[in-house]
């Protein structure tokens, strides 16, 4: 028993290095995809303190809009542009209808409002596009879909999916772009000011409404990118919405407001759950992936209640 837990997994890693590398690669890719979802959460949380549960359904909605437009005869890249426009309208609508009337409400109310939004978007999305899964138009968007196999010694093989590589590249580009946006532009700075204190930001003449519409739009773009990537891996369907739950432990680890944190948290969860599942999961019947991420996050939390990148909290009275 002890051997199975403490020694055997490492022996396996050593004996099948190609497989271990493959596991690491899968963990990396999963981590990047989790990070992309988490990124959407972070953007909105940073600017409005809202924990946006609707990010998951926004991913689905963006993906469905893209594919839905394409299926109705719109050329792929025009569909992409139109989807961006749709996400912009959605962001504006959410800001107008949901966020603005709820300014200064407690966190939990805002959280609930985004879950309400999730329900609405599920109904709305299915109403327009139907419930059946759709194939992502990866090729039409000039995304690579093939795979490369790297041989390693005898029988050794690492298979890299091109779409996964593309996902990683896109994630890195998005994070860099957002980093520049936050730190170098006027709107970005205003956004951080809003994050610190809504009322103070208002009092120095920053338009909250404008800022919120912008971050929801940015989150919408992230959702679109995530939707394309996840969609290309499986399919665009409403079942995808559930993957968004995985963003939570990522956020815990990375902190709710840190963009690099989202990436690093995503990678920790990605690596952690793949390695855990493949080398230890079998001991308890498998499927531990469904909760391992949360337990990892929980353990981190017990030692660092402020998250990996948060500052130590000094409680005051």
């Amino acid at each position, binding site marked *: 028993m002890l051997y199975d837990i403490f020694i055997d997994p490492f022996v396996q890693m050593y004996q099948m290095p190609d497989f271990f590398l493959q596991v690491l690669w899968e963990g990396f890719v999963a981590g990047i995809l989790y990070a992309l979802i988490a990124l959407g959460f972070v953007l909105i949380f940073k600017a409005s303190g809202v924990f946006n549960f609707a990010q998951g359904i926004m991913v689905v909605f963006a993906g469905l809009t893209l594919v839905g437009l394409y299926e109705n005869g719109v050329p792929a890249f025009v569909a992409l542009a139109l989807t961006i426009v749709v996400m912009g309208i959605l962001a504006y609508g959410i800001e107008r209808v949901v966020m603005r009337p709820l300014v200064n409400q407690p966190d939990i109310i805002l959280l609930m409002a985004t879950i309400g939004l999730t329900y609405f978007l599920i109904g709305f999305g299915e109403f327009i596009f139907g419930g059946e899964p759709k194939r992502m138009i990866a090729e039409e968007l000039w995304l690579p879909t093939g795979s490369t196999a790297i041989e390693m010694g005898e029988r050794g093989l690492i298979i890299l999916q091109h779409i996964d590589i593309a996902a990683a590249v896109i994630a890195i580009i998005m994070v860099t772009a957002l980093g520049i946006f936050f730190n170098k532009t006027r709107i970005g700075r205003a956004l951080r000011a809003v994050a610190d204190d809504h009322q103070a930001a208002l009092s120095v003449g920053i338009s909250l409404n404008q800022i919120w519409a912008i971050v929801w739009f940015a989150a919408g773009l992230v959702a679109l990118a995530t939707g394309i990537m996840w969609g290309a891996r499986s399919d665009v369907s409403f079942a995808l919405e*559930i993957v968004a739950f995985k963003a939570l432990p990522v956020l815990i680890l990375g902190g709710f407001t840190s963009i690099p944190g989202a990436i690093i948290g995503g990678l920790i969860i990605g690596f952690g759950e793949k390695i855990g599942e493949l080398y230890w999961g079998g001991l308890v019947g498998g499927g531990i992936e469904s909760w391992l991420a949360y337990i990892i996050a929980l353990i981190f939390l017990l030692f660092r209640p402020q998250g990996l990148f948060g500052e130590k909290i000094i409680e005051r009275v």
Partner: protein
Amino acid sequence: MKHFKNFALGSAVALGVALGGVVPQAAQAEDANYVPLLTYRTGPYAGSGIHIANGMADYLAMLNERDGGIGGVKLTIEECETGYDAQKGVECYEATKGKNALVYNPYSTGITLQLIPKASVDKIPVLSMGYGLSAAAVGGTFPWVFNVPDTYWDGASVVIKYIGEQEGGLENLKGKKIGYIFLDAGYGREPIPLLEQLASKYGFELLQYPVPGKEMQNQSSQWLNVRRDRPDYMVMWGWGAMNPTAIKEAVKIRYPMDKFIGVWWSAGEDDAAAGGAQAKGYKALNFSGVGMDFQALQDIKKYVVDAGKSPTDPESMGGTLYNRGVLNSVIIAEGIRAAQEKTGKKVLTGEDMRMGLESLNLDEARLAELGLGGFAHPMKVTCEDHAGSHPVFIQEWDGEKFVKVTDWIEPMKDVVRPLLEEAAKDYAEKNAPWPARTEACPN
């Protein structure tokens, strides 16, 4: 505060409407047979559910349009959306059973399990065509539940039989590894006891890869495990979004597709198409015909779909799952017809319908008469055997469509039947006091 008055007024009105409107009317047109269809066109399993729902509804609608119903009595068809959710399913059941429902098709193993004990109490049969509780095939214990043409155990035995054939005989399975990837719910776990039994009998190793419902679209771990274990064959019990994802992942790890076999619910065209060109060679069980070359399907197109009386996309007609839905409705319709013959009544009750289903005999001649010659294997229900363990065939994805590649393969009745009886006994014991069968055998 200003909102409040309007709100109060609004909710008072809403409540009034709710109390008045929600209570379903028991008063149904006297001269119709009421068939509720529990379907799901929403939720994570909609991808599979929509085709089934279309097929079921369209065939019955066609009978109404073409023949004016069955035996001169129209069918009242009502869909109730379950979203594959057991709670909503039960709610649909409760809402519709009072309207003199003839039969329920839950289309979810979870909902089926909930309805099984209710069936005998409410006297409405449950038809779970090729899914649900395998043990329900034992008519002596489950007089109200029908799972023609096959149970999952029949299906699993056919898969093993087929693999044995590929290997040149079942005895060659010794030492082989067979992977089983399944939706980790009642549905996917159902065949495990049989597979385990066969594994010990033929000496192959059974490797299990459960896919949790909420991780359906994130199967990379399961397939990495497959890659490590290198099973000789893969068997899949998937549904909804699990199917296309699994096929994609299999392609990704370069698993030989011709050694990958799905159950009849993993046999959708969309599922296989998701894998792209490399999915060629993927196999799946089936018991209903593929394609549009059947008179009945042409009639559906003519009377229903082209007439704009159905939401069905004409291109999806003839697909595996659509045709599966049609077959389901054929069984319902034939059950009704048989019941009308037995009882001499035109407007039936659930009890009549039970007798009808129990005396169902869909022979070749009858199938041809229905315009469905060769659409399905002839099937017959007896009082003892509500599934019948009918032969199924295997179809292969050629990159564009499924092609039938084997003849009809008989399930291993000798293995399956004793297991079924044992399971039925076990069920009755666990749910003691389980009512003993009092219904007379109509045959």
